[in-house]
Structures are given as structure tokens and as C-alpha cells.
């Protein structure tokens, strides 16, 4: 097992190298110039030249890449062209926002979708199943930012239960933090839940028709035990994959939700940085995403062995 984990971690190296090359060169292929994006029309040729020199953009791209990789390996992420701040400092303030939002929305998503999916499968074609079906279809098709604005209007303006926007760190003030995060997490959680709920339902329906379920029922097990221990546990394997991917996605932050709720998270940072052609920031964030995805995939692979003892890595 340990060998497997080490091996997977080693696989990170070529993956990250590939991703770093792609994102480094791709962002530079996009037309536009950081100086122009920042200064707009009032950029003088002098200003443009100055910014190019300052950030080494006047050197050949290949050389720029080598310099950048060397620095990143020493954990020197450089400075943002746009804000002139250390990128590590920016990440320290942004990452907690996206992480807290991601964890809360995953929690909300799972606590809605799992029970709903199971009920839906067990009471297939009942009124309840149809109702859940309608909700999940809506949840998948409604855009998150729109739902966010509606939720702000209903729970912030008409019935002022929650604050309209903004971020308070959960670790510094738990209740305030939770209050501020609830609406955005709920918005995000709802659309994630719809998908997971469908997956759970489909998986459960498949499993409930298996012979071993009939056997379990035949030997007189309680229906609750049959469903949770025998059926649900077996649907967990495909679910873990989906949940893993979803976690990776939300950890990267959701740009639209972060803009609507004025949360200074990673997603908004990435989008803003792309618009200002803030190359160093874009590169680091994309790299960070890659690392997160690879690690989460690894984690879900390891989880499989616990969920299903038949899976053994060697």
C-alpha cells in the first residue's frame, strides 16, 4: 500500500511538468498584453516596455519558463503583475475562502443528495421519487449565479435572515462565518446535490436488482440493513469517483458564486488574473488545481480499498 502511494505521488512529477508547460505557454498565446490590460488605452509605449522588463516578459518564452520553474521549485512564486503583491501572500488569503466554501457546500450537497437518492431508488416511481426527480432536473439546469442572486434577494433583502455578501473566517468567528458562508454554500451545494442524487439513485437501482440483495432479504435481514449495509455500500464506489471530482472542482472555487457573494476566493482570482493577463498568478493557480486534482484522485483510489476489500493495490 505504502509503495503504491509513493508511486502515485511520483507520478505527480510528470503530470505537473506537463501541466506547467501547457499553462505557461497557453496563457502567453492569448492575444493581449499585461501592461495594456492593466493600463488600458492610456498605456504609453514607455509604460509597456517598463512592465515587460520588470517581469522579464522581454526575454524569450523558453528562457522565461526555465527561470519560472527554478523559482517555483524553491517555493518562490514571484509577484503578481497586477497587484504587485507576493503570490504566496495572495494565496494565503484566498485559499481559506475557497476551502471553507468547498467543504461546507460538499457537506450540504451530500446531506441532501444521499438520503434523497436512496429514497428515490427504494420508492421508485412513487410520488416522492417523481418530486425528487423534478427538483434534481431543476438543480442541474438552473445556473448557480442566478440561483445565488435569487437567494440573496429572498433571504437577504425580503427576509433579512442572512448577510447579503462578504466573507468572515469560520475559525475567527464561527457563527458569523457560517452565516456568511451559508447562502453561497447552499447555492453551490444544491447544484452539486442534484447530480450526486441522480448518481445515487441510478447506482442503487442497479444494485437493488442484484441476487445478493434477494439473498439478504431471504435470510430475513431487516429492510434498513439490506439497504444501508448491502445495497448502499456497493453504490459507494462509483459515487466516490464523482464526489472526488466534485470536491476538486469546488476546491478550486467557483468564480461566479464568488463574484455574486463578494467572496475573495481562488475562482474569482483566476478569472480576474486571466483578464488582466497576470501570467504569474494564472500559472500558480492552474498548478495548484492540478496538484489538488491529482491528490484527490489518489485519495479516492485509497478510499476504494476501504469501501471494497476486494480491491487491493500492490
Amino acid at each position: 500500500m505504502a509503495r503504491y502511494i509513493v508511486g502515485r505521488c511520483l507520478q505527480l512529477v510528470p503530470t505537473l511538468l506537463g501541466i506547467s508547460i501547457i499553462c505557461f505557454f497557453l496563457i502567453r498565446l492569448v492575444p493581449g498584453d499585461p501592461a495594456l490590460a492593466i493600463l488600458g488605452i492610456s498605456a504609453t509605449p514607455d509604460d509597456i516596455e517598463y512592465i515587460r522588463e520588470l517581469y522579464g516578459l522581454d526575454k524569450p518564452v523558453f528562457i522565461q519558463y526555465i527561470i519560472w520553474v527554478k523559482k517555483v521549485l524553491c517555493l518562490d512564486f514571484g509577484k503578481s503583475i497586477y497587484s504587485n503583491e507576493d503570490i504566496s501572500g495572495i494565496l494565503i488569503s484566498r485559499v481559506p475562502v475557497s476551502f471553507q466554501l468547498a467543504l461546507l457546500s460538499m457537506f450540504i450537497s451530500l446531506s441532501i443528495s444521499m438520503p434523497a437518492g436512496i429514497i428515490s431508488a427504494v420508492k421508485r416511481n412513487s410520488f416522492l421519487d417523481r418530486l425528487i426527480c423534478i427538483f434534481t432536473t431543476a438543480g442541474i439546469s438552473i445556473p448557480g449565479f442566478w440561483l445565488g442572486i435569487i437567494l440573496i434577494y429572498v433571504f437577504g433583502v425580503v427576509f433579512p435572515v442572512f448577510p447579503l455578501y462578504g466573507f468572515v473566517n469560520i475559525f475567527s468567528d464561527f457563527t458569523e462565518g457560517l452565516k456568511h458562508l451559508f447562502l453561497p454554500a447552499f447555492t453551490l451545494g444544491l447544484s452539486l446535490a442534484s447530480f450526486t442524487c441522480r448518481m445515487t439513485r441510478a447506482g442503487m437501482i442497479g444494485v437493488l436488482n442484484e441476487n445478493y440483495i434477494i439473498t439478504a432479504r431471504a435470510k430475513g435481514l431487516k429492510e434498513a440493513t439490506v439497504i444501508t449495509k448491502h445495497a448502499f455500500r456497493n453504490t459507494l464506489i462509483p459515487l466516490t469517483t464523482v464526489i472526488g471530482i466534485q470536491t476538486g472542482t469546488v476546491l478550486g472555487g467557483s468564480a461566479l458564486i464568488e463574484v455574486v457573494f463578494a467572496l475573495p476566493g481562488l475562482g474569482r482570482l483566476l478569472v480576474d488574473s486571466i483578464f488582466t493577463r497576470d501570467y504569474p498568478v494564472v500559472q500558480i493557480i492552474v498548478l495548484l488545481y492540478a496538484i489538488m486534482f491529482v491528490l484527490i484522485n489518489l485519495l479516492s483510489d485509497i478510499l476504494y480499498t476501504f469501501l471494497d476489500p476486494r480491491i487491493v493495490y500492490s
Partner: protein
Amino acid sequence: MKKTITPIILLALLLFSCFVSASPQYGGILKMGTRLIQPSLDPHHDMGFGGFEKYVAFNTLIQYDQNLEFQAELAESWEIPDNITYIFYLRKGVRFHDGTEFNAEAVKWNFERMLSDYSQVRTLFDVIDTIELIDDYTVKIKLKHPYAPFLDLVASNALMVSPAAVEKMGNEGFQKHPVGTGPFVFETLDRQKGELVFVKNENYWRESRPYLDKIIIREIPDDQTRLFALQTGDIDYDNNVLTSNMDELRKTGNIKFVSILGKSNTIDFLTFNCQEEPFNNKKVRQAVSYALDQETIAQFIGHTELIYGPLPDTSWGSNPDKPVRKYDPEKARKLMIEAGYENGFSVKLKTWSNDPKRDDLALIVKEMLAEININVEIEVLETGTLFQQLMQNDFAFASMHWGGGGSLDPNGNLQLLFDSRSMYNWISNYRNIEVDTLLQQALEITDRSERQKLYWKAEELIIEDQPMIWFGRFVDYIAYSSKVHGVEPLKPAGYFPFPDEIWIEN
């Protein structure tokens, strides 16, 4: 009927509020919502214009008043003995927020900082040759060559920062903790919360100012969310309201609006490439102008103020009786025939994305020009890309915007755009030696009425040549609670109100 009543009611309300608001009150907190709190709060490290937050803690040597005349601020008076020498007599007893004294030494230090490599206003002040201390409260600045808008430059861009604070915190520290002589003192900046707080400067040099106890600036990037915040009173001042949201806000009531363009020389226009076919022919450019019905365009797009030349009517550089080309499709067709284009031609109109008003503009222009057989093909680009293509002379017809060149002086719209040697000449590639001479002369005379005559003449020539279509300018609004008063955008280059003039009714 309804349409005419609303402005009348608004006007009545405005008059009424002027009457009521005769005596400002002290105290209160202004909560302002803004799209973005600038990454750097150091006015010398300024990428573009920045926002209101950049001006709260600072003063300039002189300042414009609402009639666009210069007023004393940190300089009590000034003198211009010849067209390259400017002498400023400073106000005595002014202190920076950190307690250090504001004097001639500090002024010299500030101008030197603005000219240093660190500064991003460097190119603006490049015209300065020497800065000389005459005594503790007198500074003499000599220019490399005559530059009449120098006072405008000082009023709009030369914000005085505390030398001691910069030396103590370093440039990077100062970007997060601005220290000046201004009406409000920096208190906190919380990027994660998106909140910037300034408190009243109890030792402000201007007696009985400011009125407010505190200014809280909150970063709310989404326009809709900011609107909700204004409606619920979470903020009472919104820096930038989408025009599509104005009706909604009017329904809420108790909200006042003021154009964000204020007294600025901001213009929106369509520009021709005057050196390339087909628009190198003046007749074709004039024909396009006759074929476009300004009033219909403004009505179609909405929230568009009409302009009739490269300067808005509010500028003293623009002749109120300038010749105007009115919509006349017959004349347009005739000019097209004279130019040898009776069968018309096809042309690409380059415009940029993310702006619904600009999309509408392109559409209606396409429709109108089809009438004179010009087939317009619309190409939508990103702003940076559009500027780049224009700079590389890769355009014939483009949709553009100009913010007055960072200045309230007519020079910012005339010399910068139309002098063939200007670094912004790429916007239309316009060349006219007579205009060049007039604009150059206007730079060398410091007397405003003399300069005005030259600008009026140049304006007339430029309008005759029609290197651009000045259809109007798109207006956005500042919206604020009706209990807030003293919001009169002017600074710098016309966009933001004076923070020490704002007050709140209890």
C-alpha cells in the same frame, strides 16, 4: 406624458433638496460600495485612474472648483513668471497624518518620487526639469519646455504623500497604508473581508472640514449584489450603478443619481483610420457622419449624452457655437458619389466585448450605414486586443473610448488625440499640419483665454476633417441615499466627489 413628468419631478426634488440641504451636518459614517478596491493605495504607484479610495487620504497643491477654475489647496497661491516656470507658495502649519510637517522639502521629495523609476505617473511629469527650494514654504518648478496644462497636471495627479511614512514603511508597505495630509486618515484594510476604512482627520488644515466621521469602502464585485446592498441600506453610496438597474432603484425611492462622468472630458466615438482606404478620403468620412442620426442612436442605446465634437460642451476648449454636421442622408449619398463610391463598399467595424451599449451602437451604425451602401461587418474583440490592433495600424473603422487623457484641460482631448506627433495619434492616424501648429502654440501660452481661441480654431478644423464620429458619451451613474449630500464629481479629471464635502443628514 409619463416620460416628461419624471424629469420635472426629479428637477423639483433636486431644487427642493438644494433648498433643504443648505446647512451641512457633522458626523455619520459613509458606507460606499465599489466593484474593486485598488490593489495599491499609493497614488504614485497608480495603474490607470483607480478609484475614490485613492484620493481620500491626500491633497494636491491646487485643485479645481466646480467652475473649472483653480483653487488653493496645499499651495496658498502660485505664480507663473514665464511659460516654463511655476512658483508655489505653500500653506503653513499643515501636517501629515503621521505628524510630520508638510513643507517645501516634502513637495520636492514628492515630485522626485513621481519622477523616479518606481512611479507610474512618471511619463506624465516627465516635462519637469528642475525642482528648486526657494525657502521653507516656496517651491520653484522649471519645465523642460513650455507645457500649459502643467497646473492641470498638478491639480489632477500630483498627490502629496508623507515622505517620513514612505521611508518608514517602504514603498510596498505604503501601498497598503497610505499617509497624506487629506481629510481622512487610513485606518484598516482587510482584503479578505473586502473592507477599507478611513476615519476623520481631526487636525485637517481646512477649517470645519470634513463633515463625516468615517468612510467605509466595501468591495462588492457583482453589480446586482451591490444594488441589493444599496436597497437594504447595507451601503449608502454605490460607485457604479448599471443603467439597466436604475428603474428598479427609482422604485425603491430615496436614491439620488449623479452621472459618473461629472465634469470630465470623457467621450465615446467611432474612429476612422485616416491614412487607409476608404477613409483616407475626407468626403467618405463626412458622408458617414451625415448618414448617422445622432439623436436616434442616443435614443436607441439609452443613457447617452450627446456631444458634437472631440470635447464635451462643458469644456472651455470647446466653442459653444461650433459647426455641427446634422443628419442628412441626401448629402451623405451625394458625398459618396463625389468620392467615387456610388456602389458603396464593405468595411469592418472593430468593437469590444462585455459592453451591451457598445453592441447596440455597432448594430444601429450597421443599419444606418447600409442606407448609403456601406456594408458594415462587426468584429468583436477584447479591449486589449483592440488597442493592440489599432496601435499596429490594423483597422479601418473602430469603436473607441477616451477618458480625457487623465486631464480636465482641453489639451487632453485635442493635442493628445490629433497632433500628428502625439503618442496617441494611432487612434485615428489623423494628420493636419495646421492643427498641429495651433495645438503646439496652445501649449506654449499660459493664458487661458488666449489658449481658448487657438483651441476653438483647432476644433473647427478637426470637425471639418471628421477623423472620428463623435456621437455621444455613455453615462453611468453614482447612486446614493438621499440623506447623503455634497456629491459633486470633479476629482481627478472629473470623476470623484471631494471626500471633505460629503455629509450625511442625521
